[in-house]
């Protein structure tokens, strides 16, 4: 159908857009190894010095530690709530079933300031002080949907006859869960959990409205605004890219089927309306 000229033009456009998507990531990765305090291009001297400076900086350490704790707690909450809801929605037909998916989707589909501002007004109204736990609550609300989507997608691909066979062979509910459902689901849960962690680890906007403390992205933001410690920020930026990209890469593998959209945030919606 497409003429040769069209094909070539499309291939060129595709290459250009992919390059456009990757250049900023490559640039920031290179700057992490820049010896100079001043950010200018081209980089003349290379060093690993700033990695050790960043690693020994107490502020960076405490921010990293807070981010990790928040990410882990938010992931656990998301795993529990997301998979419960996925089971319920998958197994049963009931009134309001469709709106449940929509409800979980809202925090990620609406702009971050709306979720952030809403939580901020609620905490203020209820007289709740902003602590690590308020960050976790904020993060968990938008992490639930990724776990939920991964588990629902996996359950859809699982044949119900496997569970019936298990029951026929005399297994009780717990054994069926332990020996049939769990092995089928575990990779979907790991994939969902990794994505939830990546999402939480990187979040800024909701965090600024709910933060009792400095997470790593907030640390980056504060230093960027004041133009301070940019070499350290470069190193952290590089590390954060690795720390978010690796889980996504792994979960992409785990979600299997190979068809990429399983992990895309945009496709979080795609899964809903099928």
């Amino acid at each position, binding site marked *: 159908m497409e003429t040769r000229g069209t094909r070539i033009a499309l291939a060129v456009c595709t290459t250009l857009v992919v390059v*456009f*998507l990757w250049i900023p990531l490559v640039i920031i990765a290179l700057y992490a190894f820049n010896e100079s305090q001043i950010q200018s291009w081209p980089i003349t001297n290379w060093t690993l010095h700033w990695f050790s400076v960043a690693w020994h900086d107490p502020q960076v350490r405490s921010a990293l530690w807070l981010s990790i704790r928040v990410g882990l707690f938010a992931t656990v909450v998301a795993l529990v709530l997301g998979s419960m809801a996925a089971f319920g929605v998958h*197994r049963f037909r009931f009134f309001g079933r469709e709106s449940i998916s929509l409800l979980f989707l809202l925090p990620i589909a609406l702009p971050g300031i709306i979720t952030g501002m809403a939580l901020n007004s609620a905490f203020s109204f209820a007289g709740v002080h902003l602590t690590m736990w308020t960050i976790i609550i904020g993060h968990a609300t938008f992490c639930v949907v990724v776990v939920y989507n991964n588990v629902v997608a996996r359950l859809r691909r699982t044949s119900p006859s496997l569970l019936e066979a298990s029951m026929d062979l005399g297994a009780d509910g717990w054994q069926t869960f332990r020996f049939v459902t769990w092995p089928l689901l575990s990779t979907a849960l790991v994939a969902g959990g990794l994505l939830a962690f990546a999402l939480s680890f*990187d979040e800024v*906007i909701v965090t600024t409205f709910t933060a009792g403390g400095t997470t790593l992205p907030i640390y980056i933001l504060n230093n960027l605004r004041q133009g301070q410690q940019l070499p350290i920020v470069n190193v952290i930026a590089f590390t*954060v890219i690795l720390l978010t990209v690796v889980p996504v*890469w792994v979960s992409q593998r785990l979600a299997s089927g*190979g068809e990429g959209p399983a992990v895309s945030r945009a496709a979080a919606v795609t899964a809903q309306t099928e």
Partner: protein
Amino acid sequence: MAIDVQRQTGSLRGARLRISAAFWRRPWLKLLALIVPPVAAFVIVYAASLATMLASSFWSTDAFTAEIVHTWSLDQFRTIFNRDNAYLGIALRTVWMASAVTVTDAILAFPLAYFMARLAGPRLRSLLFVLILLPLWSSYLVRIYSWTTILSKTGPLNWVLNGLGLPDTHLAYTDWAMWIVFSYVWLPFMILPIYTAVERVPTSYLEASADLGARGARTFRSVVLPLVFPGIVAGSIFTFSLTLGDYITPLLVGGPGSILIGNVVFENSASNLAFAAAFAMVPVGVMAVYLTIARRLGAFEAL
């Protein structure tokens, strides 16, 4: 001792069987046990928060204590819609920026999505998926920050331009920089729905169009575009909504006057919560209108 253990595990198994049988006989009980906790948590935390924000927007803030005063009024909205204030202009500029970003992303995403869906082989296609998804998931803050270095006076962009014999650009800290960065960070959100839409166009339609004598441009205009359009609208929901609610990009790459809705909300959230809540209702309202239109255009089926 051994018997004791056995009896114990026996009774444990008995209990487990009874519980499992009870759930089996009363599936609604299982449904309640599974659905109520997550939904209740969501309603209590999220839906209630949205409701509080809506309520707060009709309250006011004590100017001295910054405490919220629970008296109902439309004062906050009067402030927003008062023509003497800058707020209406800021809201309009935000909507304008969101529209510009959406159109740019649609133009950038279409060829790539089309290539992926129709021309790339399976291996190249999954490679492209990874190449698009990894930037989407890697830190959003870092990707914005990277552009501040790229666009800076002594950054890579000017270095390339000078190398080509061209003069410096002064894009850093302008609305143009905001436009570039927004288009950049939300681009993958546009690519994926368009890809899905293109993939669903049956090849036979294109063949039929060619058989009926249409050239490439005509087939594109009369067959491909109408079929893919709902996908573009679906992608635009993300690019539009995310731009509408962002304040980090204006903060980091925008100039002194580059204030969007998000900045006003954030700046006021500590000192004047009622006003911040009211101004946050502006993107909610805009999105409600946008989603209604998108639904008419069939975007929800295309998602």
